[in-house]
């Protein structure tokens, strides 16, 4: 067997005083999947951005095929057959899927008109991977899962020999993640070197050949998959033993209904919500389950007052909080954790303190500075109120948003995939805070793609399919995964199990 395709030789990356990656030495081989594990802010993304040419190493160097890497930037990386699927996608939301694919394809011909046969190969991968995505749709109108498929097609289009995935499964449904695992395996079997940055141990057991563990910028362990028990890998990652202890919120004693969705109808390109009615009581956690792209994001936008409704109403404690008109200015009283917080919930070039106080800033009132308490309570790392939000790692940014939205008592909370991209300790913390809100009297809506978590902790689960609530089930311990799966997909139980 030939030597490694990529070697990191004592590579270090500093951002000012922060050492993001600390003398990392690692080799990457063709034909295998290397999983890179580590908690939020461990330096995983930065390590791979060094290879991709975005952040050249401050010290040390990188060898490609045994020769010092000449990669100066992403364009060079692509030319050298390195492709990267970013944690935050590198797409143009305002442009069509077609344009996004063509822009990232080095072989795009000069004429990009519809009739040019030369552009067909750029679209072929997507057609194979996700035949349901219409290439003429704007990327902004796709669900996160669909956007990732577009991102994937882009990387496959450059016929890369080294493919980097930065937390690809954190935004996917279990079924989509399963498909992706198979897909990643096939890439490696075809001889590519695949690097898979992840927090999910399921990803590791499903497709990794080797596992590298990072902690505080350093690579603390590299081992073959299966060589060490998962528990010892987790403890290497965390530096401390972590047990999954999701404690469900207390059952509700007396139902006092507080948040109402009354026959809500709304329309967006490619999606329509029809007659959604839900009542959430004080102290209740209502889970919303569904396959990605069945109206979750539109429903969230409607409840948060971002997207106008065409009829019906959303009422919190007797007051309508729905938007009826795009021109209306409206600040939601809900604690709202949107999906993709980097794009939707923070101002990257403002400090953490200002980001925590966005509502006060918008209202023009005084900004308070209990930021430090909140930052440490929610484990935002580094807890420096004066730092720019854009320099936080993906997971820490998510925690920052949770701190703002769950840090003060609310009467209603809307959480969309609140644990996306978080490590195990952080997931635990966010769930605790979310359920604490309920126990303090909030009505909580929790949109999730993790059925297991929903079934562990939600009081009731509503199932969303094709823009409609097809069922609302009491989570009384008698629910089965298959039953919910059947409702989600519209298939019968025996078909799901098959």
């Amino acid at each position: 067997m030939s030597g490694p395709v990529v070697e990191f030789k004592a590579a270090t990356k500093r951002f000012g005083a922060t050492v993001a990656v600390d003398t990392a030495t690692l080799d990457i081989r063709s034909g295998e999947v290397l999983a890179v594990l580590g908690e939020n802010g461990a330096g995983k993304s930065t390590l791979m951005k060094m290879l991709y040419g975005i952040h050249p190493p401050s010290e040390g160097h990188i060898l490609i095929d045994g020769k010092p890497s000449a990669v100066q930037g992403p364009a060079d990386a692509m030319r050298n057959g390195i492709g990267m699927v970013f944690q935050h996608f590198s797409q143009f939301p305002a442009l069509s899927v077609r344009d996004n694919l063509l822009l990232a394809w080095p072989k795009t011909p000069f004429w990009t008109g519809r009739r040019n046969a030369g552009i067909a190969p750029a679209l072929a991968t997507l057609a194979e991977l996700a035949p349901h995505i219409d290439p003429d749709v704007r990327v902004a109108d796709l669900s996160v899962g669909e956007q990732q498929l577009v991102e994937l097609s882009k990387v496959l289009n450059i016929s890369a020999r080294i493919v980097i995935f930065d937390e690809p499964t954190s935004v996917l449904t279990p079924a989509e993640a399963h498909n992706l695992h198979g897909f990643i395996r096939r890439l490696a079997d075809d001889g590519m070197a695949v690097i898979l940055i992840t927090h999910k141990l399921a990803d590791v057991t499903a497709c990794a050949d080797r596992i590298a563990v990072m902690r505080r910028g350093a690579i603390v362990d590299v081992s073959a998959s299966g060589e060490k028990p998962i528990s010892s890998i987790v403890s290497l990652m965390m530096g401390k033993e972590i047990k999954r202890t999701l404690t469900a919120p207390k059952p509700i004693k007396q139902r006092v209904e507080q948040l109402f969705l009354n026959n809500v109808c709304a329309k967006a390109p490619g999606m329509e919500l029809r007659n959604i009615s839900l009542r959430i009581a004080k102290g209740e956690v209502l889970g919303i389950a569904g396959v990605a792209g069945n109206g979750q994001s539109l429903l969230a936008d409607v409840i948060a007052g971002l997207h106008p409704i065409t009829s019906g109403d959303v009422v919190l404690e007797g007051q309508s909080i729905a938007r009826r008109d795009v021109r209306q200015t409206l600040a939601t009283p809900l604690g709202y954790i949107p999906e993709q917080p980097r794009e939707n919930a923070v101002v990257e070039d403002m400090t953490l303190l200002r980001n925590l106080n966005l509502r006060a800033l918008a209202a023009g009132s005084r900004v308070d500075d209990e930021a430090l308490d909140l930052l440490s309570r929610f484990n935002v790392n580094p807890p420096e109120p004066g730092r720019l939000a854009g320099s936080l790692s993906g997971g820490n940014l998510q925690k920052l948003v949770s701190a703002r939205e769950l840090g003060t008592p609310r009467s209603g909370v809307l959480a969309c995939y609140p644990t996306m991209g978080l490590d195990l300790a952080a997931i635990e913390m966010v769930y605790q805070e979310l359920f604490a809100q309920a126990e303090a009297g909030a009505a909580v809506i929790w949109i999730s793609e993790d059925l297991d978590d929903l079934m562990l902790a939600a009081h009731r689960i509503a199932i969303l399919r094709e823009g409609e609530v097809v069922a609302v089930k009491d989570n009384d311990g008698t629910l089965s995964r298959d039953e919910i799966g059947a409702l989600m997909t519209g298939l019968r139980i025996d078909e799901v199990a098959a």
Partner: protein
Amino acid sequence: MDAELFAILAAWSVATLRSATPLIFATLGETLTQRVGVINLGIEGEMLMGACVGFAVGVATNNPWLGLMAGAFAGALLSLVYAFLVLVTHANQIGSGLAVWMIALGTTSYFGRALVGQQVTPLPNLGSDWMDDIPFLGVLFDQMTMAVPLAIAAVLFAAWWLANTRPGMQWRAVGESAVVAAENGIRPRLVRLHAIVVGGLLAGFGGAILSVDYTQTWAQEMTKGRGLIAVGLVIVARWKPILVLPICLVFGLAEVATLRVQSAGFAVSPHLLAAVPYLVVLLILIVSHIMPRRDTGMPADLKSVFA
């Protein structure tokens, strides 16, 4: 009666088209520049430089076509100064634009003095004898030069270019986000350089049309803010090249109307009247922004210019 009506209509149409033509080129140039996320106020200077150099070369060579090309070239050259300030030294876009404008104002005032009162050979008219009998079109073509069809062709070509070619697509992408474009292997600075120079080329050409074809004279500061108006019209046209045409024609029509009102001897202050075309554009801008719309068509990266 019919013939008379046709004649009046044709006269107005031709006047509108001719007064709008320099503006169409400038607005188109600025649209393309803004599509890559750059606001170039220097376009006023580039137009002025194009008008001055174009006129000088037209006079010297007795060939209006050479004049127009020299004007375009001068505009492009001046836009390189702007590109250097913005892309290499990372100077503020607004400040750099003003600087370029001032450079043009100074040099053209100085070197232009010799041009005042000179005669330039005009572009030939499009009309020919056999057309004279056709109502409307006969008059129209008789008073029109190649400049008008060229402007229309340039607009159509630019719209098609943006939508159907790889470079056009890259321009749109860089305007949305230079960072994401770089992640996709595009070189945003190179793309911006191209767009700025093309913008300068078009603005210079527009300026030369103003002096060589439309007024056929040179006067100091003769662009009278047309370049700045172009910057505003880009917003009204929602950064879409194809809308540049109708928007500029509305401006041209308003200008022609005020001129006619003036020459008809109405007792209105000429200074007030001169403000009318600008008011019309302002009105369109306001109306188009009141109409509810989420998608403004503004390239996302432009917002950072004002951050």
